[in-house]
């Protein structure tokens, strides 16, 4: 039995999974809170504990994400696009396109049947359109980020947001509130703006029939629905969207290591 671990140390969340030859044994997710090294260590430990394993038992560790280099134990760094692709391929072998809304960027990845990258469109020069705005807006509206999705589904008359800067979207939201716009309409409007941006990206890569949606943004059911409607496809959403990158990291680490010694 081979044990492999994958870590995805993103910009806000640290995620880890441990897998054996076939299955996911355990996973864990924790916020980074500004200390990448600590979060990376802690999330790995936590996952090991859940799986009832020790570090020494792991045959290979793959890592990805912005903070991957802060992991202190020996590991293999892999790009996050590839990891997301492989992770989704593991969960949904039929998916040919992945939409990922993370904290810093949104991406559309086209996959081959082996889960390799056939094309990839990244939006990462400017945070407009990334998942960060969801956090910001939740803060402005003084609600928990988990509530966004549910609320937006109630909207009947979403506001038109300019797809501009995430920072300005915040002030735009504030003034909408001041005008008395309903909270759900604001959220729905924001989701729509994001969906349009993502639709444009998906078009660039030529939209595929079977699409999956992952990354932190996929936790938001309202956003899932909005994107699904905008691009006119049903989206496959993993049970735990946060960990797809980590799964991919684990899988790819093994591939790259060949047979571990």
């Amino acid at each position, binding site marked *: 039995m081979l044990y492999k671990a994958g870590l995805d140390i993103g*910009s806000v969340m640290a995620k880890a999974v441990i897998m054996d030859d076939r299955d996911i044994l355990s996973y864990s997710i924790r916020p*980074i809170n*500004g*200390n*990448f*090294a600590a979060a990376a260590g802690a999330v790995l430990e936590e996952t090991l504990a859940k799986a009832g394993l020790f570090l020494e038992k792991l045959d290979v560790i793959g890592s990805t994400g*912005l*903070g991957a280099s*802060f992991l202190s134990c020996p590991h293999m760094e892999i790009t996050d696009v590839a990891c997301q692709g492989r992770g989704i391929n593991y969960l949904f072998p039929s998916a040919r396109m992945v939409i990922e809304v993370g904290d*810093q960027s949104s991406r559309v990845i086209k996959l081959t049947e082996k889960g390799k990258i056939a094309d990839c469109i990244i939006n990462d*020069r*400017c*945070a407009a359109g*990334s998942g*960060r705005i969801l956090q910001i807006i939740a803060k*402005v509206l*003084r609600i928990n980020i988990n509530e966004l999705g549910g609320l937006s589904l109630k909207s009947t008359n979403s506001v038109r947001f300019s797809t*501009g*800067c*995430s*920072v*300005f979207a915040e*002030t735009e939201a*504030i*003034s909408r*509130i*001041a*005008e*008395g*716009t*309903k*909270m759900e309409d604001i959220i729905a409007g924001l989701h729509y703006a994001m969906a349009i941006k993502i639709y444009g990206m998906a078009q660039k890569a030529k939209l595929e029939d079977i699409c999956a949606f992952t990354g932190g943004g996929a936790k938001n059911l309202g956003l899932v629905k909005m994107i699904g409607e905008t691009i006119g496809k049903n989206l496959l959403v993993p049970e735990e969207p946060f960990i797809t990158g980590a799964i991919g990291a684990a899988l790819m680490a093994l591939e790259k290591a060949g047979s571990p010694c």
Partner: protein
Amino acid sequence: MFFAGIDIGSTITKVVIKNEEGILVSTAQPTGAEHRRLAHEVIKGALKKAGLTFDQIDFIVATGYGRINVPFADAQVSEITCHMRGVSWLFPGVSTVIDIGGQDCKGIKVAGGRMRNFIMNDKCAAGTGRFLEVISDTLGLKLEDIGEISLRSDNPAGVSKTCTIFAEQEVLLRLSEGVSVEDILAGLHKALAGRIHSMVSKIKIEKDVVITGGGAKNAGLCKYLEERIGFPVLIPSEPLITGALGASILAQEMAAKTSADEQVKKERKLEAVTFFDKED
């Protein structure tokens, strides 16, 4: 006679009440989500401080980002004009005003108390006060302190990201790499000063230069900007209120222009307007 200027900024709401002689009181407090209730409350606060009642105020000018949400104002004037007027009143020799606000940054060219030209950032929050807020938040420091702290560095860190949101992440990475807070802050302030300077240069920076707006309260930013500009700049003792001050000056002028019969006061009520309610 009494005149009020109320400046509902994106971040901070400011009020100035003056009479013919000069400023009586000024207040500043954070702008919340509910401008309307806020406008009503801040003016009450300011009135109380001045020992006046609402009816004693002859003319009110609202300005700033939320100026349309002040139901009791007699007139609305853009913040560009107001800052320009406020600063010219404080520094009659001013030629270039740099206003660093919460969500925008402006350069205004003035000659003989009149606006000649202006420029404003657009689309991107990267050159605004908001940038500093986000950073101080990320670092868990007080906004008031980061400027001073940045001045302690003699080896500013390189900052490659311009986007406010991404810069925040870069800060965290640098921290994790062991770069000192001073150096990071110095790097960020320098980068911000650079962006503001190159924007304002478009209208040609000429003496006297006055930096105002909330950003002017940041000593680090002012120093780095001064370095870029290449000669000393002036900073009002209370930079936050120049917009509100300008509005109150305009209030005075407008009151004088309004003919006597119009002086029979318009129906103007100071009351809370219904506003967005979470429970709906």
